[in-house]
């Protein structure tokens, strides 16, 4: 839960220009927000999120910077006034013509603003009130201000505020914010132009949720590991982060609810609780982990994410915003134990991987004790890494995963070929692609016609094998014609979501005039099933379908599954 700004945490600043800036809040440092100002980080640490601050300072005077919380009433002031006028008395027929200003007489040039650039710059230097005086002056010295309609005046003021207000809002850095930040303020291609709506759908269709048992007690978990998810993520870790957020293992303070509960009960422990936490984080890792009995990296059994990656190292750089550095992960972070990485080569041909295949020779303890400490720790590190890779790879190869989420640059069918067999029965599959073509191809690979052909061909081959005594490898024969086994996935579906943002103002509600184009984002989903190897005729008479009463709230079946009654299995 993001209840206050913690030291050494990444937070986002929403600026008057609607841009977002992400910064780590280190105690006793300055925070720079470009032309919107500078202030000491200590002035926002410990404060709640979503507050808007004005930066006030007296020029030439050091340490005069101070932040003022802008109240909600002030932020909404204009709308509230406008609404008050609109709602209070709807019948205001007083001089309709006189009050209804139009843009008939406005002059469309820049001569109306009498303030020169030099004067504005001077104002900026002297200004103390977070830019408010500048805007007031600008409005004052606008010669045609009384000709503006209410709407255009509001727009003018807004434009000037965006330019001159020294104001910002502190927002917790979570997956939704990071998604929008990457999409709008950064390079969208790095996250495959992932949008909020697509992430939400991926999580739901992938049935990603907390596995139920905590990672702290091993016994109950071992008996029945729950919530093991497989993911292929080429968005720099954004999908992994979204999954981890849904599973409650993304934030370093996930699971520390007791402290916040204390906050709830009384105000005094709130500060002491926060104090203790602050000390913890000021001296990271060592102290925190020795108290817990050092659990090895990637050792959790349930509620885990296993990332399959194409290169030697996974690209999960975005996880750094959540306190997880890929190069040097902090042992106290929940992902340290619950996030596992396996390369596709380790998955498909583990013995080709040097770390997996070459066991560091075990050295008896007596001999080890004679080593120098640096050599000893090197031995332990190598040995530990080998054991970790062994365990994680073997575990991944054994399969039984509870869900599969894919957002990849690779051909999705090549990924599905190797990952679907690793799923438990009924486990969901969800694939994201910025473009539709890779997914229509996947849909085609699971088409009913292909499925029927696959089943018939398999039956033929099995019969041939039985008749000829010749060892026919049914599997490889089938793989030649069918790259994917179409019988392993139920209800393949392709969909897309797009959110449309509206402006809601009294008398001025409409969808936004423009928004970001680019990739729409498509989601393919289905369910892993376990087909019976027996020969089954499907029941049901296709002609009966015509008598089916379609309820109004039901979408009728599509052509893809509409013919499934003819299928044989």
């Amino acid at each position, binding site marked *: *839960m993001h*209840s206050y700004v913690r030291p050494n945490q990444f937070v986002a600043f929403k600026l008057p220009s609607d841009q977002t800036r992400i910064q780590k809040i280190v105690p006793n440092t300055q925070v720079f927000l470009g032309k919107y100002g500078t202030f000491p980080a200590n002035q926002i*640490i410990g*404060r*709640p*999120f*979503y507050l808007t601050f004005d930066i006030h300072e007296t020029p030439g005077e050091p340490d005069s910077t101070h932040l003022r919380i802008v109240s909600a009433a002030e932020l*909404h002031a204009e709308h509230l006034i406008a609404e008050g006028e609109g709602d209070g008395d709807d019948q205001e027929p007083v001089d309709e013509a006189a009050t209804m200003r139009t843009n008939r007489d406005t002059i469309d040039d820049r001569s109306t603003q009498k303030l020169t650039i030099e004067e504005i710059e001077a104002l900026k230097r002297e200004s103390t009130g977070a830019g408010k005086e500048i805007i007031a002056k600008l409005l004052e010295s606008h010669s045609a201000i009384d000709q503006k309609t209410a709407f255009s005046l509001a727009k003018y003021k807004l434009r000037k505020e965006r330019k001159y207000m020294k104001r910002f809002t502190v927002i*917790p850095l979570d997956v*939704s914010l990071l998604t929008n930040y990457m999409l709008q303020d950064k390079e969208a291609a790095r996250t495959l132009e992932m949008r909020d*709506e697509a992430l*939400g*759908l991926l999580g*739901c269709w992938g049935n990603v*949720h907390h596995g*139920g*048992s*905590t990672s*702290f007690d091993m016994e*109950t978990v071992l*008996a029945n590991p729950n919530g093991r998810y497989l993911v292929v993520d080429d968005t720099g870790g954004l999908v992994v982060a979204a999954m981890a*957020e*849904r599973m409650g293992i993304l934030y370093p303070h996930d699971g*520390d609810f*007791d402290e916040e*509960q204390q906050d709830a009960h009384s*105000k005094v422990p*709130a*500060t002491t609780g926060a104090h203790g936490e602050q000390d913890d984080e000021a001296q990271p890792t060592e102290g925190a982990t020795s108290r817990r009995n050092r659990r090895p990296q990637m050792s959790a059994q349930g509620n885990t994410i296993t990332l399959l990656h194409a290169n030697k190292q996974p690209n999960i750089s975005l996880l750094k915003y959540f306190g997880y550095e890929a*190069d040097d992960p902090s042992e106290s972070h929940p992902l340290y134990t619950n996030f596992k990485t396996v390369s596709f080569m380790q998955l498909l041909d583990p013995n080709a991987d040097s770390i997996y295949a070459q066991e560091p020779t075990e050295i008896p303890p007596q001999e080890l004790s004679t080593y120098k400490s640096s050599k000893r720790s090197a031995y332990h590190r190598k040995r530990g890494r080998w054991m970790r890779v062994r365990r994680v790879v073997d575990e991944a190869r054994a399969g*039984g995963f509870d869900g599969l989420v894919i957002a990849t640059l690779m051909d999705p069918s090549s990924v599905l070929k190797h990952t679907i067999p690793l799923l438990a*029965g*009924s486990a969901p599959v969800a694939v994201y692609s910025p473009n*539709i073509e890779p997914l229509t191809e996947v*849909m*085609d690979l699971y088409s009913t016609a292909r499925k*029927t052909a696959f089943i018939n061909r398999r039956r033929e081959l099995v019969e041939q094998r039985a008749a000829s005594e010749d060892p026919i490898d049914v599997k490889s024969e089938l793989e030649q014609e069918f790259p994917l086994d179409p019988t392993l996935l139920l209800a393949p579906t*392709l*969909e897309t*979501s797009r*959110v*449309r*943002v*509206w402006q*809601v103002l009294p008398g001025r509600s409409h969808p936004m005039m423009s928004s970001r184009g680019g990739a729409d984002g*498509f989601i393919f989903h289905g369910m892993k*099933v*376990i*087909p*019976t190897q027996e020969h*089954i005729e*499907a*029941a049901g008479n296709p002609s*009966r379908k015509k008598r089916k*009463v379609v*309820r109004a*709230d039901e979408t009728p*079946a*599509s052509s*893809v599954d509409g013919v499934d009654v003819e299928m044989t299995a």
Partner: protein
Amino acid sequence: MGSPFLTPGTHSQLNQLALLHLRRDQAIPTVLQLHDDDNAGYKEGKVTTTRFGSFPHTTLTGQQWGSQIIASKVDTGSRRGRGPQKKNRQLKRKADELDSSAATTPAAEAGSGSQSSPQAAVAAASGFLHLVYPTPELWTMSLPHRTQVVYTPDYSYILHRLRARPGSSIIEAGAGSGSFTHAAVRAVFNGYPTTTTTTLTTDEGADATAATLPKKRRLGQVSSFEFHEQRVGKVRQELREHGLEGLVHVTHRDVYQDGFLVGDPQTGTSPKANAVFLDLPAPWLALKHLVRHPASGAESPLDPTSPVYLCTFSPCLEQVQRTVSVLRQLSWLDISMVEVNNHRIDVKREKVGLEYEKVRGAVVFPKSVDEAVSKMRHVEEHSRKYRELQQQQQDEEDSTPLPASLDAVLGKEEQKPVVSESETPAPTTAALADPSSQTSSVPLYAQGRLVHRTEDNLKTHTSYLVFAVLPREWTEEDEQKCREKWPPHRVDQPMQTEKPKGRKQLKREQLQREEAEEQQQQQQQQKHEDAGEESGKIREEA
């Protein structure tokens, strides 16, 4: 035992909800039981009948989830215990089957309790379905509708924006059909409560979990409010059947009037919500209860230590305007309104070409200008030959002037095409097709062009979603405390922290930092002495 929605395990179990998946948008929810109190008289015990055959629950229980299950031969005719309306009901059942909405057939042991063990089922010659565990998505698709349902595209986005995460507490008003409820439980779930009055949700495993927990964690919960009494009953019953009872508190309540406290409206316990979802006709009437200090003097239903995220779900713009206006008055921030446009996409192979004669779903039409021209050539050729033949016959007739009746001439003319076709090779359209594609050995499923389009039934509008955030309360007192802890003007020397460092370097830097701090303090002392002096403002970029 847990809920099959959250922790389904690997196999289906008795007394748990399972879904019988028939087709993409059709699954039958059923609680697996060997016997039932309703006396349906099947020898096999409880049986669910679908349009793809009958499935005794003995064949569904203890199966691996996702298994394909073969239908069984079930004697539906000679059942006992159905009384005089037997024939009638059978007819009705048949109609049900045709309607394909195949409801769960109430079933039970045949006759008295002595035949308690159900007969082994015999596999039928045809028919199958897939046995899958329930998810909120499948449940949304198959649940019994009582009200308008919040579908997956909407609730997936809403829950994402509401930051509903494991351990959160979420308020839902308008439980309705329970679709959002199930999705919300999944989002906030992080463990079953250990002290519940029901026998369903506790077992030794869960107790052990609680005992070994090193920290007291807050468990995620949903507080659901509904003012329609019958719906409350239904939702409660469903949640019990689904093993979600301890995670959702359903309250029968008019929230406009009585607010959101669990239990008594005035003195009840606060759900300490982090997120609120209002699916009400007039959400603005409920907002007065969702404040930090309710005017009624009751406890706030919101979590005092966290920001609260709100979403309202209204189909009309007028509702949105009133809601937004009230939200502004009540100091909610970051107010935004969106609508979610979702559509499913059909993918198929479009087959256009002359070679697709007699192929279902294909269009027999030239696929290219070349094919069109070559077809025209064939037709021209054909008619030229025909005319020649006709001419020939005409000549023959002319040369042998026999008295012919009108009928005979007509008859001959009708026959002529037939004759000519038997003479010239029959030019079927398929034969006229582009030879390259005609001779190809591409299997039927891979022929044609891969196309995609929006599905036929399009939901163009569900509802408008209004989102808003209410920050934590922050008093002057809090601010003062924070200032004491974090000196507001303290800025240290910048550190060149660019790359992650080794342990040794960290230690070295720690020392350096301590030194720097001392220096800083000295500097500050100096500053106090000489106030007008330029302070060492040092830039530091993270």
